[in-house]
Structure formats: structure tokens, C-alpha cells
């Protein structure tokens, strides 16, 4: 028998199907529904913004890889970062902004700290926060989606429902929740949403926000599309429920209890569902907070992290004066992640309650 040339390596000799590249590309696939909706709602301009952010992220990754004599484009992480940066842009931003955001994300947030796996902050979010605080006006000017454009009064055209309500409340409007405020000032809703609203009792604004008929960033407007992507990631076991569900519920519950206070409505007067489905929270909870590198490694740690994200988001949203609640909360919790990973460790097999009790008794004796 002729001898085959055999590979010798440590066990195990089998491997699960998922690898880094397949995970990264799958997350990009999970973002496809939201991306497609964004391009449909905001037109080719949105596509252009996405193109600039993705291409500059890839280019930056390629050049930095060149310096280290390695090519890391295949792993899909730079594409994903670029895509997320683009989805976090208002469709009307000048094109140098997504370029700068992507370069910041890849170069400063990721490579300066050692590249994939070594960054402490989510690159796409860092990029977004950097350009947001540098170019606040273009970053917070929005356009109405195609589905609402005809009905949108000019005065309201550039505000998201959330920022509109927030400005109104900050300006002294009290006694009304955000739906009532929007309604009072003539914020439009689609006919379809109105039909559903009449049939179910939800506010038409909330229905529109869920479907994606609102002004906002390219990728954040359609909660429905994001949830489809989220379910895909859960089904393919790319993420677990721990972070997104805890994050959304924390914001929902806190908003329900305390969210009415700034508007003078007292406790238990805030909105539960609408608070979860507005202002980029779903995009953040499903795709940003769940970033492996910058979230805790244990499920227990992930719960603490998501609670923190939810708490800060709630706080910034209702009691802060700036927008960006979601991005800043996640970045804040990114800072705490190494600490969580240091102190939250899994229970070791055999370390049962009975054993602990026994050891305590022995120590006493």
C-alpha cells in the first residue's frame, strides 16, 4: 500500500461550520433587508452614501493591511464596518462625512488598537460618534422617505419623530406624549399606517416607525426590516437573545415607568413599545451592541452589559439634551466590558451550592 502523506495536529479533528469570515458575511446578509429598505425609501443618494462608506472602509483596511504584509479583506469585518457606518448616516450627508467616519472607524478605532479582535470600542459606532460631534448639523438633518415625501410639511421635513418630540418637550410642551405631540403639530403618517392604527388602536406614527416610513438614518428607519435580520442572526446562532432582548426590554420598561416624567405626565405614563422601536435603538441593539469584540464573553456578563446599555439609553433619551443616546450608551458599556469580563466568570462544574456550604462548615470547624 502506498503511504499517504498525513497531517498531524492536536485534537479535535472536526470543526463546526462557522468561522470568522462566514459570521461577518452573514451579519452583512442580515443587514440586507434594512439596507434595501433604506435605499428604496431614500433613493439613490442613500446608495451613494453606502458606497462611499463601504469603499473607504475596504480601502483603509487594505492599505493598513499592506503595512503589515497581510490581507484581511477576506474576513468580511471591514465590509461590515463600512456597511454599518453607511447605515448610520443620514441620507443627505455630504459624501466626505461617510468617508471620514469609515476611516476613523477602521484606522483609529480598530487598527490603532491592534486590528480585528483587539479594539475596545465598536468601530462603526466610534466612526459615527466622531462625525456626529464634528459635523452635527448635516448629521442631524434628515429627509422624508419616499413614502411620506408628498405629505410632509417643509418645516418638519428634516426632523425624526423622536428628535421632534424631544425638542418640543424641551421647549416646554407638557401633558402630551410624543404621539400626541406629533399629531398636534401635523406630522404626517401614511394612509396604510392610518388604516392599521384605526384597526388596532396603535398610533399611526408608531406604525409608520415600525414599518420604516419616517425620517432618519438610512439603516435605522425600518424596525421590521431590522427584526427580520435579527431573527436571521438568532436562527443561525450568530447572536444569542441575551443582549438584544435585555437591551430593548430595559429601555421599554424604564420608558414605560419614567418616560412620562419630562413631559409632565408622571410615572407609568411613558410608552413601552414605541420607545423600543424608535431612534436607531433596534439597529443598535441587534447589530452594534452584539458586536462580539466589544461585548462581554459570558452570557451573564452580556445581561449586565445590556442592562447598562438600556439604562444609559433611557437616561440620555429622556433627560439628556443631545441626541445619540444609543451610540453613546453602547460606547460607554464598551468601556466597561473588560471589567465585566474580569469579574463575571461562569460557575465551574462541580462548584455546587452544597459544596460551598460544606466548605464553609469545614472552614468554621
Amino acid at each position, binding site marked *: *500500500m502506498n*503511504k*499517504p502523506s*498525513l*497531517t*498531524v*495536529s*492536536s*485534537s*479535535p*479533528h*472536526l*470543526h*463546526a461550520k*462557522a*468561522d*470568522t*469570515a*462566514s*459570521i461577518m458575511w452573514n451579519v452583512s446578509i442580515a443587514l440586507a433587508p434594512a439596507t434595501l429598505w433604506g435605499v428604496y425609501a431614500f433613493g439613490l443618494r442613500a446608495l451613494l452614501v453606502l458606497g462611499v462608506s463601504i469603499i473607504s472602509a475596504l480601502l483603509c483596511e487594505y492599505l493598513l493591511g499592506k503595512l503589515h504584509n497581510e490581507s*484581511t479583506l*477576506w*474576513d468580511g469585518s471591514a465590509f461590515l464596518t463600512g456597511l454599518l457606518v453607511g447605515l448610520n448616516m443620514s441620507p443627505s450627508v455630504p459624501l466626505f462625512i461617510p468617508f471620514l467616519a469609515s476611516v476613523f472607524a477602521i484606522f483609529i478605532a480598530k487598527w490603532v488598537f*491592534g*486590528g*480585528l*479582535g*483587539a479594539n475596545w470600542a465598536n468601530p462603526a459606532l466610534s466612526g459615527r460618534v466622531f462625525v456626529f460631534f464634528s459635523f452635527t448639523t448635516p448629521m442631524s438633518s434628515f429627509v422624508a422617505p419616499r413614502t411620506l415625501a408628498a405629505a410632509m410639511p417643509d418645516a418638519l421635513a428634516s426632523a425624526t419623530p423622536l428628535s421632534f418630540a424631544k425638542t418640543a418637550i424641551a421647549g416646554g410642551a407638557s401633558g402630551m406624549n410624543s404621539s400626541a405631540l406629533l399629531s398636534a403639530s401635523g406630522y404626517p403618517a401614511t394612509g396604510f399606517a392610518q388604516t392599521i392604527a384605526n384597526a388596532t388602536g396603535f398610533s399611526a406614527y408608531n406604525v409608520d416607525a415600525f414599518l420604516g416610513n419616517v425620517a432618519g438614518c438610512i439603516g435605522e428607519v425600518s424596525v421590521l426590516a431590522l427584526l427580520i435580520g435579527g431573527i436571521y442572526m438568532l436562527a443561525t446562532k450568530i447572536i*444569542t437573545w441575551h443582549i438584544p432582548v435585555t437591551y430593548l426590554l430595559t429601555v421599554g420598561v424604564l420608558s414605560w415607568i419614567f418616560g412620562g416624567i419630562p413631559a409632565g405626565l408622571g410615572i407609568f405614563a411613558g410608552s413601552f413599545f414605541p420607545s423600543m422601536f424608535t431612534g436607531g435603538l433596534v439597529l443598535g441593539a441587534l447589530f452594534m451592541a452584539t458586536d*462580539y*469584540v*466589544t*461585548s*462581554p*464573553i*459570558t*452570557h451573564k456578563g*452580556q445581561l449586565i452589559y445590556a442592562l447598562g446599555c438600556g439604562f444609559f439609553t433611557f437616561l440620555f433619551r429622556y433627560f439628556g439634551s443631545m441626541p445619540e443616546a444609543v451610540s453613546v450608551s453602547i460606547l460607554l458599556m464598551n468601556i466597561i466590558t473588560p471589567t465585566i*469580563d474580569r469579574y463575571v*466568570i*461562569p*460557575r*465551574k*462544574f*462541580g*462548584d*455546587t451550592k452544597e*459544596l460551598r456550604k460544606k466548605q464553609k462548615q469545614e472552614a468554621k470547624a
Partner: protein
Amino acid sequence: MQRIPTFSKGGVHPDDNKVYSREQAIERLPMPGELLVALSQHLGAPAKALKAKGDTVVKGEKIGEASGFISADVHSPVSGTIKEIRKVTLANSIKCDAYVIVPDSEQPELPTEKADWKSQEPAELLAQIKDMGIVGMGGATFPAHVKLSIPKDKKVEAFVVNGVECEPYLTADYRIMLERGEQALEGAMIAAKITGASRIIIGIEMNKPDGIAHLKDIVKEKGYPIEVVGLKMKYPQGDEKQLLKATINREIPSGKLPLDVGAVVANIGTCNAIYEAIVLKKSLYERVISVTGECIAHPKNIIAPIGTKMSDLLEFCGGFSSEPEKMVSGGPMMGFSFYDTETPMTKGSSGLLALEPKKKYRSTACLNCGRCVAACPIGLMPAKLYRYITNGEYETAMQTSLMDCKECGCCAFVCPAQLPLVHTMKTGKKLGRKKK
């Protein structure tokens, strides 16, 4: 609906791939031209050679004597002549002395007389198990007489038979269950008598429904006090820690043995060997091995003399159907890959795999995804340990429970970054011990 028992923490679900050899009845290997009987076939000190070059040996004769407390005797699998004693490298990279035995053309018939074990005292039975060189047949090869000697201050409540065979591909235990189930269960009764256990449980994964049914029938027919328990499939359920959690819901604390929670675990193949040792007076010189994998032309379950070279097994199975990338002794999750088909099988060889080239993955940096942490059945943080070890912080790694790692491979199996986690743990343990 009743919950199917399994262990709770961690674990993974590799494809079981048992389809290649599960329907193949056990076949006897034609006598090979030459055997390589190693003197270190068990956990612990190697056996001392009792024979020299040129000596003749008889089938079943003791040719290596246990040296030390944890060690086991070695017996000649054939009648023949010792051609020489030389160094060999076993599949698990252990180097030791081995007899090269050329079998006679005529082999003696074995006596068919059956001894009665019920009238014998536990101490007598134990002495015979030691004399027959029985070791754990699941792969760990821990000497059986040591495992079954219960210290006076310990009490055994449950004797748990391991019929899990959670390693993918392997079907040797499954075939033993189907074809030698009666022997194996009687062996379990003998072992249980030695330990004084009041409960006897056999745990089998649900991918072997006919094995479960067959053993249940035997138990019913013979009236044995044995509980046959079907377990939900999950790797590494065949580890004694996970098996005890699944069957009797007890957790062995770090650094402790099954005895500390009142249990003894033995593989179903070991039970069969115990039966043969006590009732048939047959020393452990042959075993059932699954020769399987994508690249084997005709996968088989073979009963072969210990010391058979892998090349003889391969030839009996028609060689390779395609060029393998790896050959593995044992299962694919914990088995050892080796490079020389002249490597001999030992008492612990449960399988010989020829695996096809797998999809080539590219390794990246750790993503902190937490899959290894979720998969670890012991509750360790492999990613953290990996970082400590690769940074040379062996002491920190040891303090972070590195020694509790059993190298089951769950972490490396799921790692999307393809980090060599098990390899690193093994290295870390060695270097950490040295530093101490």
C-alpha cells in the same frame, strides 16, 4: 413529555457520522504476519518486560508485569516467537518498548468452560481482573483493578456503565452492545459486586435506539437490577463527569473522582472485558476497533489482537477509497492523529479513522465571541486561558483552573477564529507544571 436526561453545562453537537460503520457486524481480523505489542498501553507506569528476544510465548501468557500502583499487566495476543524488542512510537506520541511477535501458524483453541463468579469474593474477582490486565477500554486506559478497588472509607452507591460513545464515527461500543450485550451486562454485574454498588445504571445516547432496546430486553429476561437510561445526544457525554451529571445528577468537584460522589464509571467495552476475564479466563489481548471514516473503502468493526499494526487493519478494510488528510487513533474529538501506518493498536484503541481533507478555514484573532465559554462543559473560559498561555502567564492560567480542562475539544470545535485552543491548553499544562 418526559425530559430526556443529559448534562446541563456546555457541550456541542458535532455530526455523529456513525453511518459508515454502524451496520457492520464485528469481524475477526485474519492473523497478521507480525504484531507490535507495546509495554505502555495504559495510564501510568509502563509494564516491565518478562520475556527476551527469541523466547516463545503462548496466547494469553503474561509478557509484561505491572510496575507501580497505577500500571497494568500486558499479555501475549498470540502463540509465537519474540523476534525482537524495540522502541515504538504509539499513536498518542508515547515512545516505549514493544515486543515484535511473529505468530505461529497454528493457534491454540480457547477453553469454552465458564467459571462461576457468583460464589467468589470481591477480593478474588479483583485479583483476577488485575491478572488479566484489564484497563478502561474507552480510550483513557485507566487500570480497571485500581478503579474498582474501593478504599474502606468510601461507599459506592451507583455503578454507572458508559454506553454513550459520544465521539463521532466510533461504533465499537455500539456493536458490543448489540452482539455481546449479555456478556457486557454480566460483566457490569461482576464489577458492581466488586464495588458493592446498590444501583447499576447504564447510560446510552438516543442515537442508538436499538442498542437501548436490546439491553432493556436482556435486563428484563435475566432479571438484572440494571437501569437502562437513554440520554439526549450531546458531546462530551461520555466523559465520566458529564455522564454522572446526566445519569445520577451529581457533579464531581474540581480535582475529585467519581468515588467522591459515591459512583464508579466503567465503559461498556470494559464490562465486556471484565466478563471475559472472570468467566472465560481470557486476558485482555484483543479488542473491538472501528475502522471508519470517509476515506476507508469498506468501513468495519473488527476484533483484532492488540499490537496489530494499523496497516493490517487498513488492508482488511480494502485500503483507502481516497487519499486521507489525517489518520486518527480514537475518536475525532479527542483522538490522536499520527503519521505512520505501521503504528500498532493498543488496549485503548477504540477507533482508527481516515478523514478526508476538511474545508480549509483561515485563522483570525480571537473575536471574544464567547462560543468557547458557552461550549465548555467544565465552565472554564478558554479564550482567557488561551490569552494567558500565549502571553507566557502560566501561573495565572493555572490559577484560572487550567488543570480542570479535560481537553474534550468543545472550545476548539466551535471557535470561529480557528484558534488551536486544545493544543494551547496542553502546552500550557506542561509548561505550567514545569514552572512549579
